């Protein structure tokens, strides 16, 4: 009896939400028509480049040329139809529809922005993946830690220190792989420190994480100003990992240049996503980790060593963040600068929440942020008349919109952030 009442309440809430989504879709459709559909010259075309702008292994395919006006009208019509359908039927799979609507809107916007010009679509998607790499690695670190019940907001600090360690070791040893190893080691050490504070000493995990951020920014700035700057060539000039084209796969048009012509850190990121997913959801260890994150006492009574699981998870997470740190220096520009992570660790946390604490979800939302980032770069080039300050805000605006409930309620592991006291 009681459960059926609760169920019908839940259904009422979710249909209410579904209806609201319908209204939102309709609003987006109208906005598409009004903002993008007005004042278009008939016969204008937009060209989307489907081949990379650089020398590439990929087989060339013809570029996509679309008539602007019909394309925008068609996309707006699709959005409106979906909105009306959602409003009337109140479909439960609103999130999937939201994806379609967002895709239509973005595509309409791109068509509008590229009217009368050409626009390299493959390049932008490739750049999205590269921009998403540090965010995804930060998010993965978050997933690893929080699935075991330890909140780690210090990812930004871990990445900064790893970035610096990577470039210094790579420059001194003249070996980029040593730099990568140093970054991973640094990540492990710093997160071990967090684990000691959070797991053994039961310090509030947010405070411990904050301390790591402050130590990270302070220590790296100090070392940079005191040592690196005095001897840039000897300590802070490592070069970067070359682009590796994977044979055969890189020849695939569209996908090849996006996924299979990258630096090693991008490949590592892709591999780590899959590995973390397998580790968490297909192994005994993963089951234990999730049990510890949801209900440590129950796990403990079944003989799982809660402390050990948490230590290992946090340290593994730190190593992943270390790879993320390495991206900034030896993966990208070959030198360290103060605060160069520029908030990616925090966006990574947002991506983790948006991705509902799962590796693939985190990857998907990182791609969204990466896409917003590279989109604003493209729009600057297309000279869309939006002030550059607003364009630069795009990734952060998306973070806020996404977190403010488009996603719906995200449920963290039940014991997330709670120290476990053994009795």
């Amino acid at each position, binding site marked *: 009896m009681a459960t059926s009442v609760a169920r019908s309440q839940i259904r009422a809430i979710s249909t209410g939400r579904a209806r609201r989504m319908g209204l939102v879709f309709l609003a987006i459709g109208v906005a598409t028509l009004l903002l993008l559909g007005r004042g278009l010259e008939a016969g204008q075309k937009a060209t989307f480049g489907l081949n990379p702008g650089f020398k590439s292994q990929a087989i060339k395919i013809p570029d996509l040329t679309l008539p602007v006006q019909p394309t925008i009208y068609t996309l707006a019509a699709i959005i409106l139809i979906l909105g009306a359908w959602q409003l009337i039927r109140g479909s439960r799979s609103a999130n999937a529809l939201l994806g379609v609507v967002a895709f239509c809107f973005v595509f309409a916007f791109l068509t509008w922005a590229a009217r009368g010009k050409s626009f390299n679509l493959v390049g932008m998607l490739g750049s999205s993946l590269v921009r998403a790499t540090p965010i995804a690695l930060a998010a993965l670190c978050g997933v690893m830690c929080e699935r075991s019940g330890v909140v780690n*907001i210090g990812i930004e600090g871990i990445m900064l220190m790893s970035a610096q360690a990577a470039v210094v070791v790579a420059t001194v040893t003249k070996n980029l792989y040593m730099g990568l190893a140093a970054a991973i080691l640094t990540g492990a050490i710093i997160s071990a420190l967090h684990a000691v504070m959070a797991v053994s000493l039961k310090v509030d995990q947010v405070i411990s994480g904050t301390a790591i951020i402050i130590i990270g920014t302070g220590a790296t700035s100090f070392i940079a100003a005191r040592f690196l*700057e005095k001897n840039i060539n000897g300590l802070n000039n490592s070069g970067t990992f070359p682009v590796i084209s994977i044979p055969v796969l890189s020849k695939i048009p569209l996908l090849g240049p996006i996924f299979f012509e990258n630096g090693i850190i991008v490949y590592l990121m892709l591999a780590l996503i899959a590995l973390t997913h397998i580790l968490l959801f297909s192994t005994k260890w993963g089951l234990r980790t999730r049990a510890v994150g949801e209900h440590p006492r129950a796990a403990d009574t079944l003989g799982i060593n809660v402390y050990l699981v948490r230590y290992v998870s946090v340290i593994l997470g730190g190593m992943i963040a270390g790879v993320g740190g390495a991206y900034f220096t030896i993966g990208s520009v070959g030198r360290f600068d103060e605060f160069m992570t520029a908030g990616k660790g925090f966006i990574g946390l947002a991506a983790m929440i948006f991705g509902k604490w799962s590796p693939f979800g985190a990857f998907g939302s990182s791609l969204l942020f990466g896409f917003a980032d590279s989109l604003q770069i493209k729009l600057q080039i297309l000279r869309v008349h939006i002030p550059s300050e607003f364009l630069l805000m795009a990734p952060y605006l998306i973070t806020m919109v996404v977190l403010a409930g488009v996603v719906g309620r995200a449920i963290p592991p039940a014991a997330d952030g709670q120290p476990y006291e053994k009795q």
Partner: protein
Amino acid sequence: MLRRTILVMLVAAMVIGLVASCAPKATPTPTPKPAEPTKAPPTKPPEPGKTYKVALVISLLGDRSFLDSAARGIGWAQERLANVETKIIENADVGEQQLAARAMAEAGYDLIITVGFGSADWTSEIATEYPDTHFALVDATLDVPNGTGLIFKEHDGSFTVGMAAAMLTKTGKVGFVGGMDVPLLRRFQEGYIQGVKYADPNVEVVSGWVGAWGDPTKGKELALTQYEEGADIIYAAAGKSGEGVLAASAEKGLFSMGVDSDQCYIAPGNVICSMMKMVDVSVFDAIKSLSEGTLEAGNRVYGLENDAVGLCYLYDIDTEFLDNGPADMAAKMTNEVIPAVKAAVQRIKAGEMCVKDHMEIYPCDNPAQPGGMGM
């Protein structure tokens, strides 16, 4: 959960604030002081046996560009001027820089040099409080009786590299990457575009703004995107973020242009040239005048006319590209670009044409015409 999310956001806001504060930015404008009469006070003759103490208050060094150039000027003064003692105070935080400048004035320093257009307000405020100390400010004007502004005609300098870019491009498209979309950087950008169009009106310019001085990874992505769109030469005027542009040119085997200091050595063969902005010379000159007792109030303008801005080849600095770059481009540089740029510089110096200044500080009545070089 909610509490935790709020905490996370708070911390994020704090750290982002920290990061933002390290970029040069304007402090809240104080109530304007009544303008002092700008007649130059009598300069004091040098006191024999006196050691002049000079302090440079600056953001974190190591950009191999603008900031390092100012520090280099201080280094020269320390080496070459016997009666000068120097000190450099680095701090990323503008508030701390103000404290440092005050402390140096209190400590009896004779000349305090501050850097950046964002420092203009607080420097003149502190200068009014310490009338016995002389202040010099790089990149903005100072209207106090004890202040000297060291300002540059970046539009003229950027014009010369724009010409070089237009003459050397093979794709008919060149790029510009700016640090922040502020008037001073617009001056770089528009000068560059005028130079490109003067040399060849058919060459297209794509521009982008990093939005930060210290984000090289973003600078790199911006550059890669511009290369993808067909640009083959990119002029980076973006402080440390510009290093990302230079790195991108090395990665793709394409070309870039540095700014402020000689940057060719950072990616030999890929960095074609640097737009020299001789902050080092201006800082050294100011200190030298001080030690000779001739440092006057007012503003010192550095431009092509006093060999302080422009394509590095004009001053035979930094000619490594001729050895490391592709042979055809190096030859074109020597045989066509350098003579053409020199001719244009002559015309600018002679007043036959001028480069429009975005900030409209320097009047320009007969701007360089697109395609003007071909005439």
